[in-house]
């Protein structure tokens, strides 16, 4: 009973914390703290938080494997879904608010500009992950197949980081930071994998 309550509290706290960036954008919008180009500022922040939640969603597994702490696994799905939510808002903000759903322009973006195409493909790959995030889908697919499908998250991380790299004009320090974080998370997984193979 106590453990259940604890998990409930952890989940509620994670949910609230994950909403903070969005709430901050709303407050900043109302108090005029989004700078001279608020549309661009919101777009950039949504993109930043997409990659951040993607990275956060990749942390519980190695924490469980290496430190034998189980509770982060309980919020892994939520973190992944927040990555999807921020990614979707990011894309809708660009398509809807920035470009006003001008389909001609959006088609041009997706076909002529590789950094836009990569970002869009990354979002597409997140869709099946969000859809199959329920317990029902884990059962339907079988755990192993479900697990294999959800390795797409690594592809999304790579594509999302490339999208960020290609967008920058000169200062690539922030995309580089994400590349380093994702690289570390991949490395830890690789070590876990090889250790399990040899033992």
């Amino acid at each position: 009973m106590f453990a259940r309550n604890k998990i409930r509290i952890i989940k509620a706290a994670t949910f609230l914390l994950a909403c903070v960036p969005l709430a901050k954008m709303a407050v900043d919008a109302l108090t005029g703290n989004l700078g001279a180009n608020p549309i661009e500022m919101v777009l950039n922040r949504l993109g930043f938080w997409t990659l951040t939640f993607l990275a956060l969603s990749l942390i519980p597994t190695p924490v469980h494997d290496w430190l034998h702490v189980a509770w982060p696994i309980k919020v892994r799905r939520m973190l992944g879904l927040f990555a999807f939510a921020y990614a979707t808002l990011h894309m809708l903000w660009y398509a809807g608010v920035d470009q006003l759903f001008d389909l001609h322009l959006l088609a041009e973006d997706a076909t002529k500009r590789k950094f836009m195409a990569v970002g869009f493909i990354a979002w597409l790959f997140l869709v099946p992950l969000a859809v199959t995030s329920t317990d029902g889908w884990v059962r339907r697919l079988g755990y192993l197949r479900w697990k294999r499908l959800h390795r797409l998250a690594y592809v999304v991380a790579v594509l999302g980081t490339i999208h960020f790299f290609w967008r920058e004009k000169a200062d690539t320090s922030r995309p580089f930071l994400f590349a380093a974080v994702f690289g570390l998370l991949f490395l830890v997984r690789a070590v876990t994998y090889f250790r399990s193979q040899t033992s």
Partner: protein
Amino acid sequence: MRSWRPDLTEKDVTPKETYLRRREILQMGAAGATTLLVPSLAKAGEPQGQQLTVARKIEKAGGEGLTSWDSVTGYNNFYELASDKESPARSAGSLKVRPWTVSVEGEVKQPQKIDIETLLRWFPLEERIYRMRCVEAWSMVIPWTGFPLADLVKRLEPTSRARFIAFETLFDPEQLPGQKRPLLSWPYIEGLRIDEATHPLAFLSVGLYGRVLPGQNGAPLRLVVPWKYGFKGIKSIVRITFQETQPKTAWAASQPSEYGFYANVNPEVDHPRWSQARERRIGEFLRRKTLPFNGYADEVVSLYSGMDLRKNF
């Protein structure tokens, strides 16, 4: 009985600018109203700094409304201070604009070092209201204070061998800490063909809104070339070199496929990563069409007759 006390203060009064635009704001709907209202509600910043004496004013932006002082001085690309747009305004204090000398070199009658105070006395200051189109597809309308570049060129008497002018920004990583990181090859170099430099629209700015130019806008002396993308407008100039060869300009050297030497505003030639057909005027919600040569085509197109502007982007 307690006496009535008003719960509204001066702060609650709708700013005049917002009040005057109330119909426009309502028409734009919620999203538009937010972007319009928010900056004006939060900080209706008045121009600051020492006032400059302006001899005459020339409006060259088709009567369009000015971009607010806060936006012009708070949204800056000045990588030598910081690579984002909000930080330069906060960190500009590290740039010391006095004493300041501008070194004139190369193919001129007399190479010399000019103190900025001397330079300011050479020409009467005028205000020029220009559109400014950034290569990143946003734009502003800015009241610059300064003097025509042509006047300086004439006074310096370039030799017949001077075909280009190269400008150089101060290199001092203590004052401009962004130069500690190799984002571009420092110092920043920009340049113009001599006939571009002597065009009446080419301008050297020492002020904004009739006030001394703030550091983040390129104090104490910056270039303004309104028919070109904003990155041509080199900031905090310390060297002007007249030369025979085309200068290796900073952005063109760093990404030759994305930025050219000419960098004339051209809605038909896209940046590889975004369209240049439209732009967002800062303070507005809807994007507008970008004009060839930023709307100055009639005055400058003859400079480029016979040139392929797709190749010479």
